C-alpha cells in the first residue's frame, strides 16, 4: 500500500523543505525517477544481469523426535496449497504408512508434514519422492491442458 514514510523519517522532517512543494512531497522518490531516466542502456543492462533472486534461506527443517522411518518436517512460508497436494502424493506411496499435514497456528507461516513409512525406506526418501511425483504430475497437467486448448482452438 502507498506509504508516506518520509513523514516518519527524521532527516526529511528536520531538513528544510522548499515551501513551493507540498509538505507531503517526497524528494527522495523524485530523485529515483531522475536516476531511472539518466540510466544509460549499458548500465540498465548490467542492472538486469545483476538481478539474482537472493540466496534463499533454509525453509525445510526436520523436527525433533524424528526417526528414520517416522519424521515430522517443518516448512516455512508454505500453506494448504502445497500441504494438501503433497500429502496426497505422499499417501499414494505404498511404502508410506501414514502421512498428514497441519498448520499449527494460522498466524505463523509454518506448515508441518508428518510421514511414517514401513521399514525399507525413510521418511526423507518418501518426502523426496512426493516432491518429484508432484512435479511429474504438473508436467502431465500442462501437457494435457495445452493439447486440449489447441484442439479447442482448432474446433472453434
Amino acid at each position, binding site marked *: 500500500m502507498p506509504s508516506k514514510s518520509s513523514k516518519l523519517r527524521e532527516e526529511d522532517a528536520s531538513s528544510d523543505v522548499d515551501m513551493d512543494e507540498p509538505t507531503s512531497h517526497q524528494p527522495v522518490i523524485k530523485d529515483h525517477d531522475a536516476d531511472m531516466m539518466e*540510466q544509460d542502456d549499458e548500465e540498465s543492462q548490467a542492472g538486469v544481469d545483476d538481478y539474482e533472486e537472493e540466496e534463499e534461506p533454509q525453509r525445510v527443517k526436520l523436527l525433533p523426535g524424528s526417526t528414520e522411518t517416522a519424521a515430522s518436517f517443518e516448512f516455512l512460508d508454505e500453506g494448504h496449497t502445497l500441504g*494438501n497436494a503433497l500429502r496426497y502424493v505422499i499417501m499414494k506411496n505404498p511404502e508410506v504408512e501414514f502421512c498428514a499435514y497441519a498448520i499449527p497456528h494460522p498466524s505463523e507461516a509454518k506448515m508441518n508434514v508428518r510421514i511414517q513409512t514401513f521399514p525399507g525406506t525413510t521418511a526423507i526418501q518418501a518426502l523426496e519422492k512426493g516432491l518429484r511425483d*508432484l512435479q511429474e504430475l504438473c508436467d502431465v497437467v500442462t501437457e494435457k491442458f495445452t493439447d486440449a486448448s489447441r484442439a479447442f482452438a482448432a474446433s472453434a
Partner: protein
Amino acid sequence: MPHKPPTQEELERRKIVGINLETVTNVTATDFPGNYPGEDHSWDIEKFRQGFNVEIHQNDPYEASFSLIGCDASIANAFRRIMIADVPTLAIDQVFIYNNKSVIQDEVLASRLGLIPFTGGREGLRDFLKWRPKDGEPKDYDTVGLELNVKCEHNPDAGPNETDPTKLYKHAHVYAKDIVFHPQGRQVEYFSGENAIRPVNPDILIAKLRPGQEIDVKMHMIKGVGSNHAKFSPVATASYRILPVIQITQPILGRDAEKFAKCFPAGVIGLEKVTKAEAKQKGSGYEGHEGEPKAVVVAPERDTVSRECLRHAEFKDKVKLGRKRDHFIFLVESTGQIESEAIFLESVQHLKAKAKNLEKQLVNMVR
C-alpha cells in the same frame, strides 16, 4: 489369496459422492494404497496420464471454463489457490500525492488507484519485470512509473442552460484512461505501442471533480502476489464446481416428468417420448406408457444441486443425486492483465516450481 479386480461399475461408484435429502455419503477419496486389499493404488505417472483429461468449454481472454477430470481435489484446489494468491501481476503500489483537491481523501484515492487493473506487453510483464527487493531503489526492471494530472475547469463552450456536469466542466470525471504511462530505461523496448502499460478498462471512474479542483499524483507499479494484497490477484474469480450427477433409477412419466424438470434449473432435465420398444420391454416400468413424456437427464453440469427433487415424495425413490469426485469444472475470470488460460498454466508451473524448490531445500537439509 486371489482378489477379484474391481469392476468398472465399482470403480465408477467409488467416484460418486452421494447427496441425500439431509446427508452426504462416501465423501472421502479412497484411491490410496492399502485401502482395498489386492488393489494397486500406488502413484504411477502413466496411470495418471491415462486417467487424466482436460475438456475446454470456453476459452476467452477474460473468461475461461474447463474441466479437469481424473485428479484429486487436493491437486485441483492447489491450482485454484495458486491462481488467486500466487500468480504475480503488476499493480500500482505507491502513490505520491503532490496535490489532491478532490473530495476523495488521499488514502481512499490511493486505494482506488491500486485496485485498477492494468495490462501491457506480456513478454515485458512476465520476463523483463522482476520483483522489487525490499527497500530497494526503483529500477527500470522492477518499477513502472505512472502519472495522473487532471484539473477541472469551466467549459466556455457549454450552453447557458446546460446541467450536465460532464458538459458544463472539463474533466468533471477522472477516468482510468487519464493515467499516463512514462516508460523508463529499457521499458521502451517492451512497453511501446500496443504493448504499452494501460488500464484494462479505460472507463473506470476514479473521481469526480468540480472547477478549481485537481488531482496531481505520481504512481509506482510493482510486481506482487494476491496473498499480499487482492489488487495483485490476476483473477476476479477462480473457482471450481464438482460435476453433479443425477441418476433416474425408476421411470418418471407424464405430469410427474414435467414437475420433475421444474425441480432443476432450465435445461438440466429434458422430456422425451417413451418409444414403442421401451413400452414393449417387460419390467422396464414403461409398459403401456408409449408416447408419454419421460424425464431424461440432459445437462447435469448445469444443475446447482438444490436437492429440490428430493423434497417431493413422488420422486424420493426414483432419483439419486451425487457429485463426481474427480471432475472439476473450473471457471477462471481474468482481470485482464494475463489471459485466463495463461493464468491456469502459470499456476501449474508455479506448483511445479514450488515442489522443485523444496526438493532442493530437502537435499540441502540432509547435507
